[in-house]
């Protein structure tokens, strides 16, 4: 009796497997070989608030390119998988994209640990990887030119922010850092930058990011006599910290990364708690035509820096393939710098870019996230930074420099 039960199960399982492989086969061979690009954003897990918009930005670019005739007449398909904000799941997702979908470029990895785990697969299979992860170590990997990072690394971000704070008269800055790859390097950069201009880091606490209460930490901040607290964390913990700082009556400047306090924070915290909160971010070029167009396409959804960057990832991959005349990973890798830096004609969208390249003209893509120029390690150069202040449940731009 037991034997037959197992047999039936086995048969069902086998049938399901056969069915799914049939479905896969159909997908792989049904069209006249479209060019396939892969997106690996975090749709669930800690990156869940950002992944969906990132994917949508890439899909928008692919649609625009397809209606403009694709890459030399070949249509483009965007395959995607959820990296679950977990390196193990990310590697399995990347395997599927590279081995089954045969993607020629991978874009939109968010968490630094996922990017680092996926990177070896990319360079071994000659697939360029476009990422928004900030950890300094990523572009130091032996990636043979396969990594393009549109996010300024954390060193540059913290240095820029520290200088801005000094300019606003900050003298004693308390550094609250969630445990992350850049906690310690942030601390080193802050100490050096502030110290060189007569300021100081008045205290430094690294906390576990899953904590739900910060009583003793907030007490330490209050005792430290700081004029500014730098909240170097993520949305869940920064939300709690803001509430507890308000309760404790902290009257200094609260300064944080924009990703740690996106507009959704106004839904969870009352205005009196958020008023005066200053955020900064490597800014999409808010006044650029590319950003304006992306904003119009997104409608009521806010365009965060990550979706702006992934918009540019997709555009660069498509234009590089068109420029190289062949949509393979190596060609894309070798042509990215040709289409986004140099003396070519400035373009801000994939349609114009494809048209000019088809006409044999040189192009210089300037994206929604900025001018998109890379140094020899694959790090972005010349990003703008935007500072905003929370007032009555909305952000007001203070400066874009």
């Amino acid at each position: 009796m037991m034997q037959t039960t197992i047999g039936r199960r086995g048969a069902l399982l086998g049938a399901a497997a056969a069915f799914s492989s049939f479905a896969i086969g159909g997908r792989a061979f049904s069209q006249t070989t479209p060019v396939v690009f892969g997106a690996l954003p975090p749709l669930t897990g800690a990156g869940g608030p950002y992944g969906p918009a990132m994917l949508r930005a890439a899909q928008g670019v692919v649609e625009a390119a397809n209606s403009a005739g694709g890459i030399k007449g070949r249509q483009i398909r965007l395959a995607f998988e959820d990296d679950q904000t977990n390196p193990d799941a990310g590697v399995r997702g990347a395997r599927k994209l590279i081995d089954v979908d045969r993607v020629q470029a991978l874009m939109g990895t968010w968490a630094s640990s996922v990017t680092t785990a996926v990177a070896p697969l990319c360079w071994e299979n000659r697939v360029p990887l476009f990422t928004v992860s900030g950890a300094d170590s990523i572009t130091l990997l032996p990636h043979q030119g396969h990594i393009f990072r549109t996010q300024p690394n954390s060193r540059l971000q913290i240095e820029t922010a520290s200088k801005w704070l000094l300019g606003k008269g900050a003298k004693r800055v308390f550094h609250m850092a969630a445990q992350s790859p850049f906690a310690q390097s942030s601390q080193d950069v802050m100490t050096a930058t502030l110290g060189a201009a007569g300021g100081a880091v008045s205290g430094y606490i690294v906390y576990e990011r899953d904590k739900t209460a910060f009583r003793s930490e907030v007490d330490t901040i209050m005792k430290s006599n700081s004029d500014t607290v730098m909240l170097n964390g993520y949305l869940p913990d920064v939300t709690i910290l803001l509430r507890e700082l308000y309760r404790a009556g902290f009257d200094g400047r609260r300064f944080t990364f924009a990703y740690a306090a996106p507009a959704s924070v106004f839904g969870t915290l009352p205005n009196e708690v958020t008023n005066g909160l200053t955020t900064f971010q490597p800014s999409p070029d808010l006044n650029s035509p590319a950003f304006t167009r992306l904003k119009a396409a997104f409608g009521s959804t806010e365009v965060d820096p990550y979706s702006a960057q992934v918009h540019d990832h997709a555009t660069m991959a498509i234009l590089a393939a068109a420029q190289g005349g062949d949509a393979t990973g190596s060609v894309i890798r070798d042509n990215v710098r040709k289409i986004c830096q140099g003396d070519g004609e400035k373009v801000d969208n994939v349609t114009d870019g494809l048209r000019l390249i088809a006409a044999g003209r040189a192009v210089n893509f300037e994206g929604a996230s900025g001018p998109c120029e890379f140094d020899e390690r694959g790090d972005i150069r010349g990003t703008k930074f935007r500072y905003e202040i929370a007032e009555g449940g909305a952000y007001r731009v203070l400066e874009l420099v």
Partner: protein
Amino acid sequence: MDAYLIAMLVFAGFYALMALGLNVIWGLTGMVNLGLVGFFALGAYASALLTTKLFWPMPLGWAAGAVVAAAAGAVMALIVARLRGDYLAIVTLGFAEVIRLTASNEIWLTNGTDGISGIPGPWRGDVSPPEFNLIYLGIVWTAVAVVFVLLARLSHSPFGRVLRAIREDEDVAAVAGKPVLWFKVRAFTIGAAVLGGAGALYAHYNAYIAPDGFAPLLTIYIVLALTAGGVGAMRGAIIGALFVIALLESTRFLSAIIPGVSPVQKAALREGAIALSLILLLRFRPQGLIPEKTRTKAFP
């Protein structure tokens, strides 16, 4: 497609090894161990550090991974000797988190949350990526086969019968003159060694490890694999691991063919489908796909 299937079989091999290790501790001896990812991490870090910093040869690194995890397992078994059931589950879960947090914070040793990259793999770089996958497939499933045969022998030996007696009723085993603690320590050590060995193999396959990779999610997958396969039966552990990987990966393709849902809904559906299948399995076949046969022969 081939390369992908091979890579997933390699992953299934890691999961099978972990399920086998857990089966000795939980399945045979009845000690709930939700800290298995901690031993897995210890093995991974031990081998990764020894091969990248001290340039040990890889097989020695793998062995060292197993030994380090085994030592931790022995100490752990002594500490938790008097705990059972839920209490044991909580303590072991805490152990895994301690390992993960230590790896995040002891930056001088583990490079913190940046993780360790560039871990060597056998002939990696000299052969093409598909060949490397095949080589690793051979290594991992050879390891699974060896561990399976050894553990199946063990589980059918007098030693295994004592472990089962302890699982069913510790006091009776003690009354029968069996040194319960000593048996528990040995079972925990053997199980932890297998988990550590699996971690070491995993590190050299992925070339990169970071504390994020050793989150409790992995523990849950393995516990599910063992539950699905059949707690106590060594064959069940392997079938269960294959089942969990098949479930995790096939839902990718199934969710892709459902029309009219957004990517986020697909991702959520996928996680929902995995949870639902396991709930259904536990509801309708709680003994697992291959139930344990308690009246055993001397050979598997």
